């Protein structure tokens, strides 16, 4: 644990505690924010600087089988971007899909101290945890792909809702995941089982199952709420990237019907359609989507903004990648079909002259600018899908600097701008307070991480200190100091220490009898024995269980 520390004279942005740029001291003891620090504590003078909690990325792809495949598929990306070792940190490779070590260090170098890997097949959990163990500095966790699970489908189909919930809880425990993730529910299973099939409507029958995506989505939302998970079900809607998919997205959100649900990278799901030469071209439906979320406090979303330049499309949505491969131009790959999900990868470059790319860029910005509640429309590029996390500072500048945004709007495909509503909301500028919400306080709250995303007493001492600059991209690209659990990781822009962060996971209670239902399924279909499947504690040496609502309440009651 870090020693005591006092940060003085800085302008503090701590939205969770209502602090909006007030100059005040932040004290740190034993890795946590404290009310005071001993007089001999080391002092950081943050005069002229901005103090924020460490950034929290609610949705990114940084570890696991598909991430590793994306690394393997583009060695050219690494050759150009070597990440050299320093006295304190290890070497690695960069590009849009950095190696594990470089991922941790580069997040930290942007002032981020937590990031959640958003799509891991249950069978890939062990591999993912091994990679997360090698992802330094930041805290992390992952969402497990359960939306195309054959056994869960069978239980649902037979109306065994209780057992469905227990089986879901078992799977979250067995994989040490943080939240359940749905990706194109019904689509992947059809894609694998029915020769390149996919689902286009939420009331379509899912191949051999007497189920529709609509039933599946509803069941997961219900189960996740009943289990009292800190983060609700994390949904990648059906029809990603298709023109006119906004209707599917709205329908998905309606299924939640007042219950909590998180919609991932919603930019990719906010498209209308207009007749084009060969097929329907996308248009922006950002206004409809933003309006729905503004008026439905049970729904949260991360934007999944698109930034121009190199990216890697990487998703468990295998049929979507098959559809997108024709635009990528070069290589693409499908994999993990033997897992309880799928995956596809395409190295991709977003170009400002291209209609669709410019439209996606505009929709991402529109969603931010039309959002009334920054706590529920939070920051992401769906790294590396919409662009690398290293493009976050530029995105922050686009949100904070109207003039810069207008300059950029002038050079992109103008037809695309006409089909978006960006010109109608171009006057809004995000404040530092709002940026602190969308990049830190909001994601932490949505994740249910009580000790993250704020600087109140008892919070983890994850602190980022930026030098104020009119150029917000410059300001956010290189914080002067980054503290993780009270340890000064970066001082004067340079690494001064290495650190291993936590792995957050959940362990919801379930009826052990469910194992009698699951085990025979393993005997029949799995290539791995039931007793070898669950990931044990050795894989999370820095693990921390985040309690469900029920577990937290029970612990509260037990406390004297």
């Amino acid at each position, binding site marked *: 644990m870090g020693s005591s520390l006092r940060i003085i004279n800085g302008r503090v942005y701590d939205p969770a505690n209502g602090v909006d740029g007030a100059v005040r001291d932040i004290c740190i003891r034993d890795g946590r924010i404290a009310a005071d620090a001993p007089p001999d504590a080391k002092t950081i003078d943050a005069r002229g600087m901005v103090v924020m909690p460490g950034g929290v990325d609610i949705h990114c792809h940084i570890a696991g089988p598909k991430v590793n495949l994306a690394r393997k*598929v*583009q*060695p*050219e*990306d690494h*050759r150009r971007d070597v990440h050299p070792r320093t006295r304190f940190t290890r070497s690695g490779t960069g590009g849009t899909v950095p190696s594990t070590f470089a991922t941790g260090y580069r997040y930290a170098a942007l002032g981020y101290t937590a990031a959640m890997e958003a799509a891991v097949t249950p069978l890939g959990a062990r591999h993912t945890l091994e990679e997360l163990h090698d992802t330094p500095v930041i805290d992390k966790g992952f969402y497990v792909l359960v939306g195309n699970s054959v056994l869960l489908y069978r239980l649902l189909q037979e109306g065994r809702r209780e057992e469905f919930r227990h089986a879901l809880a078992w799977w979250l425990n067995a994989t040490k995941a943080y939240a359940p993730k749905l990706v194109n529910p019904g689509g992947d299973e059809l894609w694998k089982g029915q020769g390149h099939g996919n689902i286009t409507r939420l009331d379509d029958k899912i191949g051999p199952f007497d189920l529709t995506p609509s039933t599946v989505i509803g069941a997961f939302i219900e189960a996740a709420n009943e289990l009292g998970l800190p983060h609700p079900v994390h949904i990648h809607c059906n029809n990603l990237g298709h023109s006119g998919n906004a209707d599917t997205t709205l329908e998905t959100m309606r299924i939640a019907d007042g219950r909590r649900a998180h919609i991932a990278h919603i930019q990719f799901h906010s498209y209308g359609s207009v007749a084009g030469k060969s097929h329907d071209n996308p248009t922006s439906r950002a206004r409809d989507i933003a309006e729905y979320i503004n008026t439905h406090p049970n729904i949260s979303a991360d934007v999944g903004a698109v930034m121009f330049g190199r990216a890697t499309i990487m998703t468990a949505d295998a049929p979507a990648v098959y559809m997108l491969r024709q635009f990528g131009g*070069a290589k693409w790959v499908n994999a993990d079909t033997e897992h309880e999900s799928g995956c596809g990868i395409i190295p991709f470059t977003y170009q400002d002259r291209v209609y669709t790319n410019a439209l996606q860029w505009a929709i991402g910005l529109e969603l931010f600018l039309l959002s009334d509640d920054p706590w529920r429309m939070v920051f992401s590029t769906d790294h590396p899908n919409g662009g690398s996390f290293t493009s976050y500072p530029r995105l922050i500048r686009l949100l904070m600097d109207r003039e810069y945004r207008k300059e950029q709007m002038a050079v992109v495909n103008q037809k695309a701008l006409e089909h978006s509503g960006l010109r109608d909301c171009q006057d809004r500028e995000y404040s530092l307070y709002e940026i602190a919400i969308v990049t830190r306080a909001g994601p932490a709250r949505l994740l249910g991480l009580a000790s993250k995303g704020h600087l109140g007493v008892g919070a983890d001492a994850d602190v980022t200190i930026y030098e104020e600059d009119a150029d917000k991209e410059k300001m956010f690209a290189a914080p002067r100091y980054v503290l993780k659990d009270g340890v000064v990781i970066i001082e004067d822009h340079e690494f001064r220490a290495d650190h291993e962060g936590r792995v957050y996971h959940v362990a919801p209670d379930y009826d052990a009898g469910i194992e009698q239902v699951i085990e025979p399924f393993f005997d029949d279909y799995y290539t791995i024995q039931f007793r070898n499947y669950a990931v044990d504690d050795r894989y999370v040496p820095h693990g921390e269980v985040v309690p469900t609502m029920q577990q937290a309440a029970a612990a509260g009651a037990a406390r004297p």
Partner: protein
Amino acid sequence: MTLELTLHTAPAVPLEAEVLSPARLSGLSGRDVAKLGVVYGNQRAELGEFFRVTGSANGELRLTGDLSRIKQVGAGMAAGRVLVHGPVGMHLGAGMSGGEIIVEGDAGDWVGPDMTGGRIVVRGNAGHMVGSACRGSAVGIRGGEILVFGSAGNEVGAGMRRGLIAVGGDCADFAGVNMLAGTVVVLGSLGWRAGAGLRRGSIVAMHPAELLPTFSYSCTYQPPFLRPYLHYLRRLGFGITDAMLDGTYQRWCGDAVELNRGEVLLLDAAAPSAPN
């Protein structure tokens, strides 16, 4: 006066010496050159630990000794000359855009990766991947000339987009694989699967070759472009015979699994049996 570097201590493991390039050395004294940093295995070292330096830099660099473990010689050069007396290691002339490298000896694998211009002459044999695309990249050399008087290994000119590669001896397998455009001339024999994935460009060979079934015979003729190319190569010292200059060539077009706009030209006299 030429800058001369003579190897006095052979490295036990490869030495990454991209500093051995005229642009990096211009204006430096012999003493400065000896102090230049190189990467020796996983250690940092100085050029002087391996080379004796005489003369001063004026755009020409002469290297002498067994340089087969010296990598990246002439990397990134845009002008000037590098003369190598002895064998040279991998990644010769990586990323060069101009100037000339002449090797009086053999060259290792990966001659001229990412080359965009200039000329590399290898009097001996070259290893695999002459003028090829780096792993993961779709495009090989984008310009320039690589002239190998001896033989070359696998994947000569893989993914090349422009330029000329000539091999005086034999080529191993996959010559011109995934070529986008440009010209590969092989005076010796072609290995297996020459031109696999060829989109455009020409592969010229003077000996019979078994081509992939995705190549189809189109005609036998005298390609007009070829004579000036062969005259040029003869002037440079390649063993171009009159039969090559005056002969007819079978044109095989392919690769049908790609654009089918590339060609393999086989000297007709050497072809086993001209199709009907």
